[in-house]
């Protein structure tokens, strides 16, 4: 038998479910203290998430996509990138965005039905939330192509879900990244479900990482609930991309502990036992145990930090709630750089209609 090509998919994990190391961590994380800032951000985003859900439940926010359980993956992706890199998220990777400078008030504004949520002060060049599944992957590939053509040492990182890995746009991005050898990282965040459709129904492939093989990219699967594995996987892919070595696909194994969004009821389609089992693998408690056993974290710190998170998030929530609704003119003002005459008329009409209503 003649074999013309061989491939394998490596899996990375360092921190076991019980909070002890199961493999020697990469040098950068040999000192557990390096993980402390990441841990704190993971707590922060979890705290934000629960507040956002509460806001939705009390009618102060629209439909919201929770990120419960994804904290290690999200924070790790954001932490590993450089400010000048470009991030193309889907819709629930707040942790990654926070690490890059997006503010919680912006997240809330967006889900609160206000376009200004997408007008991040920082990072100005990142893509906005992307609702049409996986289309952001091709935008990231386009960004990576721009970087390559301009010879900028920057990397474009896109995320999509296990569901999103079936989307043709993801395949197209992988294909383009391979064809042009782009500085591109496709993160597939496998949280087990795409709304009600389980991972197994998306594809016959045993791993999602192997989708990269189709485009000749580097492939890796990591434990997405292990912040060390996430950081190390990202580091390898980013370094490779930045140094001209081409693109990667990383599959992050995690779990969606919440409903798909606040508009969803996962009990209709998902077994409670599966969720319970997934809680044993969630990313925060194992890291807490690890840091605690290294003497780097205790209950006092936890509660002080929880207070700090609550304080910071409250400031953000208030800023969101106090944001006045945009004027009706806003739906015209940002469509074109130069407003066509007919649109100017429609704008005037809309403003007049508002006036009549309130006048």
């Amino acid at each position, binding site marked *: 038998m003649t074999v013309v090509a061989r491939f394998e998919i490596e899996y990375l994990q360092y921190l076991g479910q019980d909070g002890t190391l199961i493999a020697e961590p990469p040098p950068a994380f040999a000192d557990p203290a390096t993980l402390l800032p990441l841990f704190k951000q993971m707590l922060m985003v979890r705290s934000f998430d629960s507040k956002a859900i509460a806001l939705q439940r009390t009618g102060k926010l629209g439909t919201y996509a929770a990120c419960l359980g994804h904290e290690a993956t999200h924070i790790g992706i954001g932490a590993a990138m450089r400010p000048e890199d470009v991030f193309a998220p889907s819709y629930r990777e707040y942790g990654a965005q926070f690490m890059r400078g997006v503010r919680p008030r912006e997240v809330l504004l967006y889900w609160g*039905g206000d376009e200004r949520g997408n007008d991040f002060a920082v990072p100005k060049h990142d893509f906005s939330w992307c609702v*049409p599944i996986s289309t952001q992957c091709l935008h990231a590939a386009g960004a990576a192509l721009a970087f390559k053509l301009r010879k900028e040492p920057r990397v474009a990182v896109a995320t999509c879900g296990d*569901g999103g890995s079936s989307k043709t746009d993801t395949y197209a991005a992988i294909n383009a990244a391979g064809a042009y050898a782009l500085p591109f990282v496709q993160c597939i965040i496998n949280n087990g479900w795409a*709304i009600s459709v389980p991972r197994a129904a*998306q594809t016959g492939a045993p791993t999602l990482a192997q989708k990269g093989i189709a485009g000749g990219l580097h492939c890796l699967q990591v434990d997405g609930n292990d912040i060390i594995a996430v950081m190390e996987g990202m580091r390898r892919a980013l370094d490779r991309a930045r140094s001209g070595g081409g693109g990667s696909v990383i599959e992050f194994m995690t779990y969606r502990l919440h409903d798909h969004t606040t508009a969803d009821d996962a009990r209709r389609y998902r077994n409670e036992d599966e969720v319970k089992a997934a809680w044993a693998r969630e990313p925060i408690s194992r890291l807490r145990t690890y840091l605690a056993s290294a003497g780097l974290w205790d209950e006092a710190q936890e509660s002080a930090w929880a207070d700090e998170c609550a304080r910071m998030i409250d400031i953000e929530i208030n800023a969101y709630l106090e944001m006045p609704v945009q004027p*009706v003119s806003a739906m015209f003002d940002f469509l074109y750089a130069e407003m066509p005459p007919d649109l100017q008329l429609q704008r005037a009409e*809309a403003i007049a*209609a508002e006036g009549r209503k309130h006048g």
Partner: protein
Amino acid sequence: MADGAPITLIEAITQALAYAMRADERVLVLGEDVGVNGGVFRATAGLQQIFGPERVLDTPLDETTIAGLTVGMAAQGMRPVAEAQFDGFVYPMIDHIVCHAARFRYRTRGRLTCPMVLRVPWGGGIRAPEHHSEANEAMFTNVPGLRVVMPSSPQRAYGLLLAAIRDEDPVIYMEPKRIYRQYKELVPDDGEALPLDVCYVLRDGSDVTLVTWGAQVKECLEAADALAKDGISAEVIDVATLKPLDFPTIAESVCKTGRCVIVHEAPKTAGFGAEIAARLAEESMYDLVAPVERVTGYDTHIPLFRLEMKYLPSVEKIVAAAKRTLAAS
């Protein structure tokens, strides 16, 4: 839903799907989350339990896939009813709809056909996230070989969906999600289809004709009520099937009233309202005593939900337009 009890528009859709699946084993349903979850709007709720996973298929998350599989199945003897989860996700399906579904019969001189239905929850006004509120019917109305249908009541939802499923050609069936649960109506589960080429006169009037489709039917009927208080008699027409258009019903009404206000939530420019106004300009010019009016979404994207109601046509805007036609003549 117990037979005999009034049901909502979305329940009427479920009822029609169940009827069609019982009556014809070639009928199957496919889409994202249509299976055990019953669809994000519950349109397919319970169907997988009744008909099994081979008749109610969850698909991988890719609209190109859904469209392409649907076309392929339809050409090979099935009667697939595909769901686009939201209007904003229908764009990746357009290639297969335009290049293949709409052309198989034409291309092969009738050897292969494509009897399929694409169900598209449509339109704004439900405070949903981005891309969940689009009125994009004009993407389909210029495409030969398609039928484009939009029900505006539980009864019409039932009858038109049955007709769409039985039709030998592809039908885009757009569902005004804002009125999915707006009111209930008695909808006998008798398998009676409605014709796919008829406009419905929902209210007789003599002064002005309000022409609309989908969710705006409600606003037009309310506008007619409001106008009646001012002594203006408005006729209200639900277009129901946009393509092929039953223009004679509209022309007949305008012949009587001399005035026409076209109402739709899609952006004005090149929205389907333009076609109706054009037909009037061609065929009813001598009947018109006042310029045609269009009350539509603005030529901008429907905003996120904080502003969306300011974008959509409203009773006030319709009444004002109707009064302008009266003032003009």
